């Protein structure tokens, strides 16, 4: 059985996307072609994603004392092949520091399946939303900044997925 979680954010997102697809699809058919009709479209940088970014955070086993898991995947645009050994930088406002502070930043590498997973301190709401920041900024592919939002401030994990295109 599928459990449908109805909360404010889901409703807003669902309502917004219904509105957007409805308006766009009916108003401008043909304008909404996927970036690559033959494959996986690249992930766009999210608005606000680069806020409080610090260049070159060190690769770490864990940020601070941990307790919260940030995970995701990195794939190549077009064929969707998993990308191994890619450096993903992660930061957030946590119980151990504010977003801009160095101890709130760290990086990790994807495994052979293109997956990454980094333990970090519990993320707490900042600026009205409990959210994290992730960056792919190594240069081989185009830089992408993500800003995923947690469904609840009590969540102890968060996911973000990258589809990268050649720089």
């Amino acid at each position, binding site marked *: 059985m599928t459990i449908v979680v109805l909360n*404010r954010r889901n409703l*807003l997102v669902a309502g917004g996307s219904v509105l957007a697809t409805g308006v766009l699809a009916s108003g401008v058919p043909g304008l909404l072609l996927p970036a690559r009709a033959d494959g996986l479209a690249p992930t766009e940088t*999210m*608005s*606000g*994603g*680069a*806020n*409080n970014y610090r260049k070159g955070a060190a690769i770490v086993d864990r940020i601070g004392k941990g307790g919260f898991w940030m995970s995701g995947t990195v794939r190549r645009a077009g064929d969707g092949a998993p990308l191994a050994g890619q450096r993903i930088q992660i930061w957030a*406002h*946590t*119980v151990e520091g*504010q*977003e*801009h502070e160095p101890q709130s930043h760290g990086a990790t590498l994807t495994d052979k399946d293109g997956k990454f997973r980094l333990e970090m301190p519990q993320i*707490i*709401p*900042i*600026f*009205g*939303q*409990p959210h994290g920041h992730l960056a792919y900024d190594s240069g081989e592919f185009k830089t992408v900044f993500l*800003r995923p939002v947690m469904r609840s*401030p009590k969540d102890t994990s968060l996911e973000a997925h990258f589809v990268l295109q050649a720089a």
Partner: protein
Amino acid sequence: MTRWALARVILIWAALAVAIGVPIAFAAGSEQLAWRGPVYILAGFAGIVALGLVLIQPLLIGGYLPGFSAYRGRRAHHWIGGALVLAVVIHVAGLWITSPPDMIDALTYASPTPFSPFGVTAMWAIFLVALLASLRRRLGLRPRTWRFLHMPLALVIVVGSVAHCLLIEGTMETISKAALCALVLAATAKAMIDLQVWRKRRALRGEGTARQ
């Protein structure tokens, strides 16, 4: 003053104190404060206080607060308006210091958070009303012109502030926050209906004479 009248005065002021004090007290007990710096905490509470002031404004101008006659109510409305500007300035300045890029996104309407445009729009409406109010005499604005300018802006302030506040996940407790927002909307609606602000003055007078 009869005993009943005195009880009524006490009840009204107590209800107002509860409506504004309880949400502030809940926010003051929020566990999230432990992870925030003093400037961020100050900015957050300035926002809550601002919402409380938005509740007081229609109550004053509608003459619902005992001890504030029409004249005194209007004078107080002006002062509270100034306090509202100050609270909003502290709110925005504090958030700017806490995280400049997030505040710049909000002010430029480029923020990913859905509540930001509501708050920023309400802020500009507050500033505009304050500016117009301070220039009202110099510009020679007649009451009718003033109403025509102030009422739409007042609606923008009220609706914008309430939407802004409700969508934020912060230190405020959900139920006390929703109750305060509902009171703000109700007080605004009542004052606007009672004062017949959307009716043309001339029509009002014509109706008044017709009834005599």
